């Protein structure tokens, strides 16, 4: 899956920007994958939480926001030309930002 300069290898679950591998913890990778699968469209907060946490995990209310903001910072630092938009009360949306 590719978007901007970002590419994501679903089989090996690896993200890279312009050929340079991006070092991401497992949960951030899961968030990124879920957003990429519906790139350009809204991903509901609840389905992101489902993708990232298994049933046993205890979810802290702002844990997802933390993952998103870290992911945002790393993508921007790597100049991936993608942006994660938050839609308050609904969820998140990943899109190309030229």
């Amino acid at each position, binding site marked *: 899956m590719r978007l901007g300069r970002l590419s994501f290898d679903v089989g090996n679950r690896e993200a890279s920007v312009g050929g340079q591998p991006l070092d991401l913890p497992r949960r951030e990778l899961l968030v990124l994958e879920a957003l990429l699968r519906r790139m350009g*469209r*809204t991903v509901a907060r609840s389905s992101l939480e489902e993708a990232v946490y298994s049933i046993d995990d205890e979810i802290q209310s702002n844990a997802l926001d933390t993952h998103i903001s870290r992911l945002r910072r790393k993508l921007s630092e790597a100049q991936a030309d993608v942006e994660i938009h938050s839609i308050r*009360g609904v969820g998140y949306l990943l899109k190309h930002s030229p």
Partner: protein
Amino acid sequence: MTDVQPHSLRWRLVRRLAGLQAAMLAVFALLAVAALWGGGFLISLESEDDTIDALRNAIFRDANGEIVVHDTPALARRRDEAGNFWFVIRDRQGHSVSQGRVPLEYAKIGDALDGIGQARLGWNIGDGPRPTARLKWIDTAAGQVQILTGPGGTVSWRRIGLAISTLFLSVVLPVVALMTLATLIATPIVVRRTLAGLGLAAAQAEKIDVDGRGARLPLEAVPSEIVPLVSAVNDALRRLDEGYERHQRFLVDAAHELRTPIAILQTRLESLSLGPDAGRVLEDVARLSTLADQLLDLQRVNQQVDRFSSVDIVAIGRKVAADLAPLAIAADYEISFESALEQVYVRGDQGSLERALTNLIQNAIQYGGRKGVIAVRVDQPATISVTDDGPGIPSTDRERVFEPFYRLHGRGRGAGLGLNLVQEIVRRHDGEVAISEGPTGGACVRMMFKPAQRTS
């Protein structure tokens, strides 16, 4: 229009019935009197009173205390008129005087009736013809005397008039009054009961409006005389329904047919290389396409009332906000959704409500000034609102923007049907739509519904 005073069936009935009763009674009484008089049973008796009146002023006493009868003109007239004129006058001292041929039956009867003030002596109906007589004690110049006399001669008109008046006053008038009173009380009750069914039909007719199809007035409780009117109204309603259905089908078909050539045009234009004007041409075609879609939506909304179920407007708000978020973000807006409650149910059609909210958010995207936040909110009891940070809608235009084909901004992609469709949808859901100003001066459009219990 001239003001026509509707006449009251009730009072017309009362007047006519009372009049008829009075006339019939009067005729009947007159006929009865005439028949009795003709048979000689009733009024003929009255002529003796005229004789007694004539005698009253003709009786005196002579020097010996005997009763004498002077031949006054009145008495002479009575004698001339009556075929068989007779009378017997006596007092309690045993003096008596008589004239004419006294019938055998009455020759001595006066002696036995000293204690009787007055009496009519006669026969039973069915007995052979016998003479009748009248006995009466009266005060005269000769003191109190008893007069016994027979019939004969004419009855004075005054007496006939008096007798008839008495009959009318004592019999006909009270009966007429009684019957009129009964009519007065009974008629309004009968009329009201009979026409009660009409009230039902009228109540049903009140509910008929341009959106409801298939309404008919109930015939069950309507009196048979008024059934033709109600049936005719029902037939007219059926014809109107058919006409309306045809009209609706035509509009839906027209809108639908319009979409196909527009879609083909759109595809062909996209495959052409039109150079620098391509964008504007495609925009024009997109506008045409939107217009056709909105026309179709408008017509479809009218046909969806029977598909209403219980729907959650919080879920609808979240879904539509999510669906339109890419568009809003692409146009440099932030979009947010907030709800005071987890779920808010209204009775309605999911598709139509999504359509209405989509239109509101699309409007906000188009006219919201390409900055700030488009906020979708669900509030109690059951309100969905869309607020933007744009220039807002001037208060003078807040009613007119709902009119079909009214466009606040002369240019733009819209056909002026978006808000009209929203209004139609909200009305179909028994709700209201209103425009106000957001906290930053932008437009705030609220759709207010009636909350429903969660049922299905």
